[in-house]
């Protein structure tokens, strides 16, 4: 692969959250010689590449580890193993974030802004401290960013509680972009917004992404939003990437039964000529990430599952040009999806 295609390079990244034990629990564990693994494997052995200027959509249901993966890419969490590199340089070293080139927009704009800091100061803080702008010029720099995200610059002297949800998310975007990032991680940036406000924020995102030539990772549980904004998409289930590929291909011809089932469970508005849209729900519940099923994690809910699936976890492997899936039956699934797509 050309290095251009490896602008963001994620190599075998895992994250295990171990509970903090107090002294008593530690003694108890030592005394009982308890060897049971402690902790939750939120992300297990994820590898992916993202070319410069592209947007990767990260989808999955709760507990799938998409937010944790986003935080690993953003340098908020340190991987338990593996490494995240941006443009050849590690994002984190010795547990500390070493770059300002990755910035994050969080889901809840009510929680992600410091309630006791004027929004203008919040936007200026990072750039000033990192020397991206001289303190004397900070005010006009902030006002410039306010204009770019569609806010009146005179509002920069207000506190977060004086803004609506949509306005706050614009501020959060301004704060991230004022750091002049190369890679922007958006963690469910529109999930808490109303439909009409959601469209405004998505448009702003599309516009700024083009203007600033950003590489992005867009995390969302909403498949239609991900389909709209991303070039490539990674589908996650219980900590693993089960399918990875170009957005249109993945959505039109899913190679993993979970992707197919997930797409079938999304309600959509009936097209011309259709009556009500019927959809097929996936059987069963999402298993607890604390105690995932053996082999392929999706096997207990999968219509294709065989004994092989519970015995042996399928690796994420190429199934078609520029497409990877973690399923023993990906070729079958792909063939069937193709016929269905044509029909």
């Amino acid at each position, binding site marked *: 692969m050309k290095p251009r295609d490896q602008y963001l390079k994620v190599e075998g990244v895992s994250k295990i959250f171990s509970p903090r034990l107090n002294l008593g629990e530690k003694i108890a564990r030592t005394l009982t010689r308890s060897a049971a693994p402690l902790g939750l494997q939120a992300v297990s052995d994820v590898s992916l590449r993202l070319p410069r200027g592209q947007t990767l959509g990260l989808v999955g249901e709760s507990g799938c580890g998409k937010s944790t993966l986003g935080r690993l890419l953003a*340098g*908020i969490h340190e991987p338990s193993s593996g490494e995240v590199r941006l443009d050849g340089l590690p994002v984190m070293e010795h547990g500390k974030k070493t770059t300002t080139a990755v910035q*994050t927009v969080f889901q809840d704009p009510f929680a992600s802004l410091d309630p006791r800091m004027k929004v203008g100061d919040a936007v200026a*803080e990072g750039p000033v401290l990192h020397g991206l702008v001289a303190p004397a010029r900070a005010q006009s720099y902030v006002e410039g960013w306010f204009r770019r995200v569609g806010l009146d610059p005179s509002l920069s002297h207000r*506190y977060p509680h004086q803004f*609506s949800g949509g306005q706050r998310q614009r501020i*959060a975007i301004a*704060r991230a972009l004022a750091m002049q990032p190369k890679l922007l991680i958006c963690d469910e940036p529109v999930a808490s917004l109303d439909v009409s406000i959601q469209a405004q924020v998505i448009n702003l995102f599309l516009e700024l992404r083009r203007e600033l030539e950003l590489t992005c990772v867009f995390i969302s549980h909403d498949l239609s939003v991900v389909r709209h904004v991303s070039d490539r998409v990674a589908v996650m289930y219980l900590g693993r990437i089960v399918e990875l590929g170009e957005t249109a291909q993945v959505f039109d011809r899913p190679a993993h039964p979970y992707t197919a089932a997930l797409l079938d469970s999304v309600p959509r508005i009936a097209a011309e000529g259709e009556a009500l849209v019927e959809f097929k729900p996936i059987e069963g519940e999402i298993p607890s990430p604390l105690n995932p099923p053996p082999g392929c994690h999706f096997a207990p809910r999968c219509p294709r599952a065989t004994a092989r699936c519970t015995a042996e976890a399928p690796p994420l492997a190429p199934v078609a040009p520029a497409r990877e899936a973690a399923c023993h039956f990906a070729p079958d699934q792909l063939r069937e999806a193709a016929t269905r797509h044509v029909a």
Partner: protein
Amino acid sequence: MTDISPPQRATSPVTLFWREFRRNRPATVALAVTLLLFLVAIFAPLIAPQNPYDLAGLSLMDARRPPGFVGSGGYTHLLGTDPQGRDLLSAILFGLRISIEIGVMAGAIALAIGATLGVVAAYAGGWIESLIMRIVDLQLSFPAILLALVMSALLGQGKAQLVTALVAAQYAYFARTAYGAATSERRKDYIEAALATPLHARRVVFKHLLPNCAPPLIVVATVQIASSISLEATLSFLGLGLPVTEPSLGMLISNGFPYMMSGRYWISVYPGVMLIILIMAINIVGDQIRDQLNPRLRR
């Protein structure tokens, strides 16, 4: 999203807070009393009819006179005189000055030390957290007065020694409160956002974490200033606090105590009344602040 159109100028949280505070009449009165007493304490040398430290101005002939007595200095002792012949009103004003000075100083130092320890413990986690919080918990498990007594007995008399004793007895309350507030704030997205920028840990702790722990700390601070004033009064009453040359309210009460039974009530009672008014006013203000800052009591 209901768009509540923001008012024309930036209303800071402080402005909003004050608007709500004013609606509680008793608390507003208590605040006025507190401020008045603080002002009186600050300007005591200008207001007091006599300088109680000026030994030359004192006459033992005037000692233990009842309120309204016209002394040898030629002026009326409105609240009477004490066993050294000092004008009691002047002594109370200077005593108030010393009590408030000690209380505020001890409160402020305890706040600075305690809040820093608590916030750092919550942020750092691990063995730092365990070490700090175990010491704090240990200290909170026996009464502050006991610790203050032992400390002042060890350190001896004097303003600095007394403040040290009070700080040692009280910083733990601030540390506990700051730790509790900071552990819940620590998990919020804005801290994560600040760390993801990345900002230096020191800046995140002191610029983002600490200010957001301020509400409960302010509440504890008001209560603790009142309690260090009364703690100081207790120590002085027991003769452990300040030297006799710097009589605080507690010592004035103590001085008058032997004469209570002989009908010379005023020497003890008037300083006591002043002490009660001061502590009550501060506590009412603290209560109102707590009510306003407690999210569970809102809505």
